[in-house]
């Protein structure tokens, strides 16, 4: 079927380019891109909820941090191996997402945004409150020897890049499959017109919860992987800023597109990287980008492309 050939080809091409970049990039950009891929997975998870289901959450740092601490705390305090701690971190994030989702989904629109913001804030403050164990803002470092999966040390730059790429590829393919599946179509239907989706007999509440749990698990996976790949666990990742950043990345790249989160994350990371060389006030760029996007390109970069030239983009 030609309908599927174009998108599948495009995404395979993107993954191939990312793999090729592994061999050609200079060290510095190699490291940055590994980080971008991990954070882009976070953005993909956010996009599942915001882009496809139309649920704007201001509290996704909670799920990223749940994965991060779900992996980091048992490794640090209980001496768990990464093979056990990684799935635990993801499961913890998914569980938290189920709880938060079940409560937050009783609200809509602006109230939903504030409820998610408040839950994330409570989570962040809880991390600070128990700083005896979490080390609060200062955070802690996961020992290099512990950071290995099945005998491969992820502290090594090459292994780290490949691991980040695998993580991103799995998340991207999962998103692609999900949004092209009947369930994914229902999510988009909810975004476009919730009432109509309900009238057609879909259990809207259940699909929304599904979106939150899938999104939470994906963000948790990104968080857990971040801890494992970069070896640092800190409360900053639970702060409001890390709830706003995925929103910014997705808005910039294009909400409701599979590749948008990657483009947005890469673009913004490099912009901030560039900006922080010039001034301490690099978040100014993020702020300006948010305002300009809302004013002039609410669909984001890929969203505009899809609107003008490529309607087939998933």
């Amino acid at each position: 079927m030609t309908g599927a050939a174009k998108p599948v080809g495009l995404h395979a091409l993107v993954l191939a380019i990312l793999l090729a970049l592994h061999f050609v990039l200079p060290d510095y950009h190699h490291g940055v891109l590994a980080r971008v891929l991990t954070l882009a997975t976070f953005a993909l998870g956010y996009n599942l909820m915001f882009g496809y289901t139309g649920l704007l959450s201001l509290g996704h740092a909670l799920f990223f941090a749940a994965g991060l601490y779900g992996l980091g705390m048992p490794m640090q305090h209980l001496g768990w191996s990464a093979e056990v701690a990684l799935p635990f971190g993801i499961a913890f994030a998914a569980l938290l997402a189920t709880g938060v989702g079940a409560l937050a989904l009783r609200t809509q629109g602006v109230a939903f945004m504030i409820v998610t913001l408040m839950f994330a804030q409570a989570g962040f403050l809880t991390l600070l409150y128990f700083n005896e164990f979490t080390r609060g803002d200062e955070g802690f470092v996961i020992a290099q020897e512990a950071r290995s999966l099945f005998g491969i040390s992820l502290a090594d730059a090459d292994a780290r890049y490949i691991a980040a790429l695998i993580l991103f590829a799995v998340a991207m393919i999962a998103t692609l499959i999900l949004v092209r599946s009947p369930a994914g179509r229902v999510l988009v239907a909810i975004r476009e017109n919730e009432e109509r989706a309900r009238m057609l007999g879909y259990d809207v509440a259940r699909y929304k919860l599904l979106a939150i749990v899938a999104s939470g698990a994906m963000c948790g996976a990104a968080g857990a992987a971040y801890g494992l790949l970069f070896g640092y666990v800190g409360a900053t990742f639970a702060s409001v800023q890390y709830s706003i950043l995925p929103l910014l990345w997705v808005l910039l790249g294009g909400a409701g597109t599979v590749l948008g989160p990657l483009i947005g994350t890469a673009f913004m990371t490099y912009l901030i990287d560039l900006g922080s060389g010039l001034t301490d006030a690099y978040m100014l760029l993020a702020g300006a980008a948010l305002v300009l996007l809302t004013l002039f390109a609410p669909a984001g970069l890929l969203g505009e492309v899809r609107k003008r030239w490529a309607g087939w983009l998933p």
Partner: protein
Amino acid sequence: MDFGPYLVFASLEGAVLAATLSLTALGLSLVFGVMRVVNVAHGEFFMLGAVAAWFVSALGGEALGLPAWAGFAAALVLAPAAVGALAWAADRAILARVGYDPERTIVATIGLLYILQQLTLMGYGPEARPVEPPFNARIALPWPEWGADGFAWTWPWGFGTTSYKLFVIVAAAALLMAVWAVLSRSRFGLIMRATQYDRETAQAFGIPVGKVYAWTFALGAALAAAAAVLIVPIQQAHYLMGGDPLLLSFIVVIIGGLGSLRGTVLAALLIGMSDGVISVFFSPTLAKILATLLVALVLVFRPQGLFGAKTA
């Protein structure tokens, strides 16, 4: 015997917080009530008020040789006016253009938050700077009950600052009364309430809704700035100081109910006092955790308190 003084101290701290919080929260509540948008940058208007107060009083003290009280009085007028003007411009340049769409407005004001905060960091720097209280040393209140017990000797520092803190409470109450008078007695208040009640009908009756929105947004920001000017001699001006007032204002507005001045003040008292008391006896972080969870649960289980008004 140790408990009593601590409780009084805690409630006094709580009362000061409650006083400034009710002003800040009222600003947020007005904006939400009339314009139906959540202004996430509200805390930054608070911060700008404090920074502007520092500029005015430092400039007045150094360049013009004004005494501290004159510089403070000037700040109390100029800082809210400047912040209000800025908010007015932001409304025209950003909020009006996204058509006050609730979700896009939130995203845009998050952007505005970072712009204001980071520009302050660039222009004003990362230091926390104090503003001299106008009459901290002049009115040192005697405290008879305590003096008789001998507590005054154990805490001689306790009430040197209190004279200014009492002034904060009185000034905030006076400002609240003034806002109440404007809302319920003046023509502008009538127009604002009409716009809040039914935007389209108001427009049909010739009320310039766009202008009303801009002025409401400016008034909301000015209230936050005024609260900040009052608190800055106690707290110092810092570019990150907007976070807490924003969070607490959210809490107050949501618990107190929308657009109701009385509800806002009552909730500010409740939150301010309990925050003060819990902070002194336990930890400020614990107080905030409880408060944020409370807000989330109020919104989940009693949404009509704030956001249900739209469907009614």
